């Protein structure tokens, strides 16, 4: 099955084409085709995993070349798929969570007349994302990278009859383009340095390249990762991306696509291993984003935007881990997998809540929903415990490892990164508990017309499965470092390093901070009254509520000057380039205007002209002696 892994891409792609081309006549059954295609892709991935596990660790990677995309002497690009432990992990995460979200969407989008189109886009996304993770070269990865960007754009703007949703889609698209430039630059440097773009060759030759080159490639790749994964300073699009339908937020903007940046960094391990400076920058970006996301999450009242901020923060953890080098790669991916489960589960829970509350998202008008929606409450609660990092739930196993690894090293780095990760865990506990208590506990602050009710089984079953994953997947994968060993062929074997603080101390400090955050949230939002209208709040609250004024900053620093530049260029174009051409054309026109007078229509003057001409010709002949 490993050599047939291309089927996992082809099936959803074919399904997307069918759904889009069949048009309205597929409305009745189209969504089931979408579910089946995604499920089939999962089965392909699953059997590939089984086959892979049957082989010894070092023979597990299988690179299959499908065809030659660009045949040439200097640049030969093959379309090839690389099924190794890292990519198969992603394949399973994407298709498993993806299939559950497909099922959920059948019910969630039931009353939308464009449900078929929605499933076509979801399938397109699955195909593009699988291409991204299965590609065996940066160029093919870039194809998938752009494909998921397109699918994300189409799905954020799925309800584009609302202008602000369409704007959100555009914003996501434009910010992602900035990141894409990073990937293009990285590929350009790679090609001039190594003469190839496939992972195998780049990985082999990376050791020979100079540190400067590797740092340049690393920073360009980081820019790409920042764009796709909503990391500082390109994080501004993710909050607005919540304009898309909630299953999209769960699949694309929480579980899979936004983690592509982490995948890119881990996949480029040979480059980053040779560029310590770039690694530190990756870790710093991760640390900044995890703090920024947590602070924003503390102030948001919109349940989806709070979850989006949390996603940003958790991906910050993954980036931090990826920036730590070989010691963190496996944990970054581990946290990515567990996060995929619990965050997708919580987003689906949020969707279920919105479903019950007439699509309201303001948590200040929720409260006391645990009685009305028991399944949602329990599944969301498991996700909440997982993201908090409460043992023995999934998040504990992955996040605790990242915090431990962050404390490993020399000099200032372990202290800065370690303490940031540690404090981040406390902040996470606070804002996630705030979200949980405001939604499900306390007094009901519902608007008059809502009648909360539990969602149908098609929605609750995927939530239950994801909640089971949130609870036990971490434990299952962490036993005997099973997952780390599975990834070792890709991430490399690492000797154990001792953190600067003893491990039990770190673990205890983490748990104490988490408990403190949760208790504080309970006192403030569980037991105490929550105002139905958001209070004005302190300067810090306002800052966080406005995403640290990222939009204003972007507007002042990039948009305004950019507009001035374009206006100047437009003026220069009109005055100088067009001006020169138009002046010249006007000159020719006036010459024509003048010579037009000669054509007076008088036969006799024509005859006179001919005679004069004849006389001149004769005179020339006679005088010139010809």
């Amino acid at each position: 099955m490993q050599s047939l892994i291309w089927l996992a891409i082809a099936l959803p792609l074919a399904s997307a084409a069918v759904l889009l081309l069949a048009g309205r006549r597929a409305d009745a059954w189209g969504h089931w085709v979408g579910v089946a295609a995604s499920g089939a892709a999962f089965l392909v991935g699953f059997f590939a995993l089984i086959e892979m596990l049957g082989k010894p660790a070092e023979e597990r990677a299988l690179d299959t070349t499908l065809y030659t995309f660009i045949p040439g002497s200097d640049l030969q690009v093959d379309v090839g798929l690389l099924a190794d432990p890292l990519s198969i992990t992603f394949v399973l995460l994407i298709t498993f969570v993806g299939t559950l979200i497909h099922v959920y969407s059948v019910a969630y989008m039931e009353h939308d007349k464009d449900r078929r189109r929605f499933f076509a886009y979801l399938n397109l996304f699955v195909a593009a994302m699988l291409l991204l993770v299965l590609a065996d070269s940066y160029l093919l990865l870039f194809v998938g990278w752009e494909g998921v960007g397109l699918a994300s754009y189409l799905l954020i703007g799925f309800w584009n009859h609302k202008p602000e949703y369409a704007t959100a889609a555009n914003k996501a698209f434009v910010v992602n383009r900035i990141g894409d430039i990073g990937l293009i630059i990285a590929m350009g440097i790679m090609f001039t340095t190594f003469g190839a773009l496939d992972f195998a060759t780049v990985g082999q030759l990376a050791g020979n390249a100079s540190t400067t080159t590797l740092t340049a490639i690393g920073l360009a790749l980081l820019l790409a990762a920042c764009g796709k994964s909503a990391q500082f300073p390109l994080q501004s699009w993710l909050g607005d991306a919540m304009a898309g339908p909630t299953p999209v937020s769960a699949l694309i903007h929480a579980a899979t696509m936004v983690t592509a940046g982490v995948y890119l960094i881990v996949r480029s391990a040979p480059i980053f291993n040779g560029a310590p400076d770039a690694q530190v920058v990756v870790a710093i970006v991760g640390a900044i984003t995890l703090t920024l996301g947590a602070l924003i999450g503390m102030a948001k009242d919109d349940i989806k935007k709070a979850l989006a901020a949390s996603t940003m923060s958790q991906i910050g953890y993954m980036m931090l881990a990826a920036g730590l080098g070989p010691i963190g790669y496996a944990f970054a991916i581990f946290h990515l997998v567990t996060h995929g489960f619990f965050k997708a589960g919580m987003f689906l829970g949020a969707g279920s809540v919105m479903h019950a509350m007439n699509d309201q998202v303001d948590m200040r008008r929720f409260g006391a929903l645990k009685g009305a929606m028991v399944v949602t409450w329990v599944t969301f609660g498991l996700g909440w415990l997982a993201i908090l990092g409460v043992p023995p739930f999934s998040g504990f196993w992955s996040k605790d490892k990242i915090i431990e690894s962050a404390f490993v090293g020399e000099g200032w780095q372990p202290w800065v990164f370690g303490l940031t990760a540690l404090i981040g865990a406390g902040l996470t506990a606070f804002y996630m508990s705030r979200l949980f208590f405001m939604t499900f506990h306390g007094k009901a602050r519902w608007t008059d017309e809502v009648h909360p009710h539990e969602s149908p089984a098609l929605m609750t079953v995927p939530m239950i499965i994801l909640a089971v994953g949130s609870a036990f997947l971490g434990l299952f994968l962490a036993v005997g470092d099973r997952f780390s060993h599975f990834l070792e062929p890709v991430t490399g074997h690492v000797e154990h390093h001792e953190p600067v603080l003893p491990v039990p101390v770190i673990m205890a400090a983490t748990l104490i901070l988490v408990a403190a955050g949760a208790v504080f949230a309970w006192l403030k939002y569980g037991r105490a009254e929550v105002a139905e209208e958001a209070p004005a709040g302190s300067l810090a609250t306002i800052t966080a509520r406005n995403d640290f004024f990222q939009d204003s900053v972007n507007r002042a620093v990039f948009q305004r000057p950019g507009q001035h530049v374009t206006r100047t260029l437009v003026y220069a174009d009109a005055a100088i380039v067009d001006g020169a051409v138009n002046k010249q054309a006007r000159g020719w026109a006036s010459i024509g205007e003048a010579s037009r007078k000669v054509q007076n229509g008088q036969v006799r003057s024509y005859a006179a002209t001919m005679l004069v001409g004849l006389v001149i010709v004769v005179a020339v002949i006679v005088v010139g002696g010809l």
Partner: protein
Amino acid sequence: MNPMNYVILAAILFSIGSAAVLLRRNAIVAFMGVELMLNAANLALVAFSRIHGELNGQIMAFFVMVVAAAEVVVGLAIIIAVFRARQSISLDEPAELKG
């Protein structure tokens, strides 16, 4: 008699013809001027033929006569058509080609 005199006569006749074409408004008269210019050319050709002692010039003169006959047919037909259309054969009135 000096053959050059015929050439001079031809030049005079040509000048008269071209003056008629340029100065007269009546299409018929202008047309007569054209004929005069053609015949001046014929006279010059025959004179050159005599000067050089060859027959080429005379043969050329026959060609010119044939062409002139055809030209008269076409030209007069055009003049009649113009007259039918405009009730006038003034050369200055039709100026549709004015740019």
